């Protein structure tokens, strides 16, 4: 299946901002994060199609996965 992975803030350094990727059906967020070499402890916000999800969530065809480190403002 095709998904789009988007990275933000420091996660972009040495990686990319947005990239279409092919994954076998049923792949989870954790698999994508592991493959990117992002330590789980650094993850702040994880969204699939703009909704917060946990790492075990399965991806579906056409999904957009957005990954942020812990950031804030206000």
């Amino acid at each position, binding site marked *: 299946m095709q998904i789009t992975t988007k990275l933000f803030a420091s996660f972009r350094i040495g990686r990319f901002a947005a990239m279409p990727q092919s994954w076998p059906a049923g792949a989870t967020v954790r698999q994508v994060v592991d493959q990117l070499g992002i330590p789980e402890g650094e993850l702040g916000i994880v969204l699939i199609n703009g909704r917060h999800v946990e790492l075990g969530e399965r991806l579906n065809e056409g999904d957009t996965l957005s990954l942020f480190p812990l950031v*804030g*403002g206000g």
Partner: protein
Amino acid sequence: MAERILRVNMTTLSGAFEEVPAPWVGLGGRALTSAIVAKEVPPTCDPLGKHNKLIFAPGLLAGTPCAQSGRLSAGAKSPLTGTIKESNAGGTAAQNLARLQIKALIIEGMPTDDSQFYGLRINKDGVEIAEEQALVGKGNYEVISTLMQRLGQKIGVLTIGPVGEMRMSAANISVRDPDGNIRSHGRGGLGAVMGSKKVKFIAIDDANGPGVAIADPEKFRSAAKTFAKAILEHPVSGEGLPTYGTNVLVNVLNEAGGLPTRNFRTGQFEGHDKISGETMRETIVKRGGKPKHGCHAGCIIQCSQQYVDEKGEYITSGFEYETIWGFGANCCIDELDTIAYADRMMDDIGIDSIEAAVIIGVAMEAGIIQFGDGPGTLGLLKEIGQGTPLGRILGNGAASVGKAYGITRVPVVKGQGIPAYDPRSVKGIGVTYATSTQGADHTAGYAVATNILKVGGFVDPLKNDGQVELSRNLQIATAAIDSTGLCLFVAFPALDIPETLVAIIDMLNAKYSLSLTGDDVIGLGKQVLKTEHAFNNAAGFTKHDDRLPEFFAEDPCAPHNVTWTMSDEEIDEFWNF
């Protein structure tokens, strides 16, 4: 020497120190400004009349070696909302006042002759009030640099620009920062109150002042160390904020579908990448600006920055997410440089940058200029500074523009513009907008932290469940933090690292020789909210004012296509504490 109050009467043009009355001894910052307004200002008075009072109060920890403790609270009855108002800002003034042992500065009355402006000079012996001619009509940058030449490089300055002189309801009060640039008491039109008192500036010279007393310096030092460590350890305050500033939120809110776009039509902006924190940092670094900067000495988070043009010349600092959202997504201007020039102009003429962004969005809705029109936006801001008839309609706030042009898509609560988070897709912050004693104000109870950023747990932003309780807890905690004078961003470590709060309480106890507990601090927060709520009720507000504009319940917000569905009964539960 004991802490004291400096009371200035602008009717008699005189001022004197007073003892601090017993009930105010343990108060500072917002707790103190709100207590004084509640006690001394008639709730039904005209905000621009002689019965209103303008109060400045440093927080309880101001002037100490505690990190992040330099925020100054300003309070009055607001001409924008008609409610009580507390607006806090960085800059040096809180520390200057604290070193003079001034716990609160109260400005009351107004001169009978409306044609004359005055400058106040505060020093260790009291206040001098002098007629001012040279600086009248001038922008805040010029006022600050002239006063530094006149009175010394180290003085604290509080000043209003032409918008405040003309008493427009969106006028702010500027505070000199450590570099001679500008921070602002932005929200609620307090600059108009200062203008109505005919005070152009307040200069604070703390030379040979008594300094700040700490009862138990040893205990204070160790708590201050723990506190600083927690701030630097937390990923948000230790790394995220100093690297990307608050503007990292453009992409966060855009991805989450809560970035109000085109005057609150949708929750995502096509041009988000061009105005994002990531792009801003790259631009600043490439051009040789400063990506991080503190708004006062003792800030170790440094969320601020100095934004420069292509030649490396300074344009503006304190360039925040809310301003960039407001002129970016909200007005569909996808150029950071244009927004930076707008920010500079607003600091200079003295208008709240959040209100101004909502004002311009509504002006675009009304067809005065088109969405996306950068030069047109700068032109309208100029008109506000000049006080043209259109400029005055704009300068009186988003609600004023909506009324003048017969528009219903006007994002305000109690007359104050709704900031950078759509309440339909970030429902916790919607509760804060509706219930805050201040009118729509994200800082009053920043539910975005828990709804979107996953700091302090997680409450689903798209559901109503748990939002009232979340907002209530945050508003109580915030009222307490605003009273300490700490920058609100200490809430990020405080929500996740338990030692943070303990250290804050230890510092309060060490400074004042007290034995406060966590419950006392929560109690203080509750008392502040209740005092403010009682003032608003006496001014004529009811629960029916704790509501969002109708269009949020009618028009779905993309991409989640959600509306505001919180019932009146649910919202009214907020005040059950």
